[in-house]
């Protein structure tokens, strides 16, 4: 049979070392391991979303993926117009005719908050994003719950930079929260997260990674990372599509699944922290702990 054709439409560039790059890696992995034919477009502005996605559909692509919540509407329209293809949206709101891939963001935030609770000396931690998107707010919700579980009086600062890729701005925002006493930072950004990491390196505080595992590249500043492996999730979705088993529904990944899991701890992380995190992951998997229900 002919190879499955998969196209991904991205809001940013595949070299952002963050979300976009992660998705791109999942896509190339699908090409290499599943033998599918791939294509992608970077930096697609909002007015062109439908155009680009339906162009791929017309060019004979079997799976068209919108990488980000803002593609939900476009995906719905493309799915309606091309009922024979599989339309997938990462982080999208559950939508008719579209397969959406979502994470229980609170769970990831929760373990990071727990770790921050054990790692913070000042009792203040921070989270930074560009825009006030719900996925981030969910992460923060869990983050705060986890942190307060260890330090009931602890404070979580939230700052927005208004630009997913502006590294300098992210760095300044980070230095700012650090000067206010925050000593664990959670970046929810594209390339901008590099600014957060740099600020943490310079001021000797910690970062918790939520999208990527930072322990390999930034072992010093990384306190704990979780991995929202959108690329992995995409890989699985492509595999399902290849077997004609994908359905237009919401695929949700909690922590401890093969597309959403714990990354590495800081080498100096206390045993207490490791134990607490492990226990929480176990409880959440078992459904005994729901950080979103606070």
């Amino acid at each position: 049979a002919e190879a499955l054709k998969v196209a991904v439409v991205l809001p940013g560039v595949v070299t952002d070392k963050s979300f976009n790059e992660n998705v791109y890696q999942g896509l190339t992995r699908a090409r290499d391991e599943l033998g599918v034919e791939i294509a992608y477009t970077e930096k697609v502005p909002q007015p062109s979303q439908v155009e680009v996605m339906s162009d791929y559909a017309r060019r004979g692509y079997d799976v068209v993926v919108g990488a980000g919540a803002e593609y939900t509407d476009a995906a719905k329209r493309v799915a309606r117009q091309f009922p024979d293809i599989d339309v997938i949206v990462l982080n999208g709101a559950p939508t008719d005719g579209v397969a959406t891939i979502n994470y229980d963001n609170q769970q990831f935030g929760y373990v990071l908050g727990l770790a921050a609770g054990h790692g913070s000396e000042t009792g203040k931690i921070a989270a930074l994003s560009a825009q006030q998107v719900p996925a981030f707010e969910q992460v923060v919700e869990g983050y705060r719950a986890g942190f307060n579980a260890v330090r009931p009086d602890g404070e979580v600062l939230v700052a927005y930079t208004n630009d997913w890729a502006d590294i300098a701005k992210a760095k300044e925002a980070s230095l700012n929260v650090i000067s206010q006493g925050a000593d664990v930072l959670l970046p929810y950004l594209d390339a901008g997260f590099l600014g957060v990491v740099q600020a943490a390196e310079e001021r000797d505080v910690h970062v918790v990674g939520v999208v990527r595992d930072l322990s390999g590249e930034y072992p010093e500043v990384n306190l704990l990372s979780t991995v929202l492996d959108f690329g992995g999730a995409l890989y699985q979705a492509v595999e399902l599509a290849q077997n004609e088993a994908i359905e237009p529904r919401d695929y949700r990944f909690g922590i401890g699944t093969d597309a959403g899991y714990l990354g590495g701890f800081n080498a100096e992380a206390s045993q207490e922290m490791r134990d607490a995190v492990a226990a929480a992951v176990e409880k959440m998997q078992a459904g005994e702990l729901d950080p979103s229900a606070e």
Partner: protein
Amino acid sequence: MRLVFLFKGVWAVLAALVVGAFLVVLAGADPLAAYGALFSGAFFDYYGLASTLVRMSPLLLAGLAVIVPLRAGLFNIGGEGQIYIGALAGTVAALYLPEALPAALRLPLIVLSGALGGALWALIPALLKAYRGINEIITSLLLSYVAIYLVGAVIHVWLMEPGAPYPYSREVPYDVLLPVFLPRTEAHAGILIALTCAVVLGIVLRRTTLGQSITVVGHNPAAASYAGINVKRLILTSFAIGGAMAGLAGTFEVIGLKYRLFDHFSPGYGLQGIIVAFLASLSPLLAIVAAFFLAGLQAGAGAMQRAVGVDTTMVEALQGLIVLFVAVGLAFRYRPGRTAGKPPAGAPAAAVPETAAKSAEG
């Protein structure tokens, strides 16, 4: 020799493509195949043409938003902000006009309130200019940022769809969406309205006393006062017309294309409108050509990227090159004995931002 000059726009594009070919090769693709995809994707393919038209609508309106004030000697660099406020006003009208009213009545009201929103936002720099002599370039630019943030905040606190994964408003009612005139594409009626606006403004500027007065103020505000024109009011009028055009651009993006108001929905149409305006030598009718060309370039570039697989970033560089070459090409006039000449009438005086300030002070 004259013929050579007649097709100078074409020569310019060709020259840009030749230079751009080096970039394409560097990006590891075959320039001929890439350019083939570019042009067929822009103009010679039903869906490509439709997407060219879809882009043309905001580009043309944003271009008009620059042209009209610039004819009066005022540089509206803040079309982006007016686009956002226009979209906001249109969205609010679409969401909150009582559904009891027939759609045939609500739709024009929505379009009007979008235009009004853009016009009002444009009036801020115009008022500051007319009555305080404050440089309109800078205020309109700064107000663009304010508008974008304002729209973000309003979406967040007021208009946001519950449970939405991204900051966007609720969907506007189905019955006030602009009809699509090319089946199975996104080409909506807003494009036709934009074209109509360009034609009407072309006529207004050429054939009406308002247009003449705008031209005189643009040439020489002191002479305009002497001619009995109320220069302050004219500054306000021309800016408001421009803002209304930008407001329409924003509104059409909502009720014609996205069906919702998205945070950060415009990819810089305001700035691109400036290019349209100058490529069109400040003529609304030529702006149709310029906007069509620029839209085709963007749509075609996307198609080329998807068809041949060249890097998106290279496509952006190529677009910059083409605009640059076309601008250079247009600067050459046919004048025996001279190489390059003055820009077309209207442009030189108008591009001098401060001319209107002096007499506006009276």
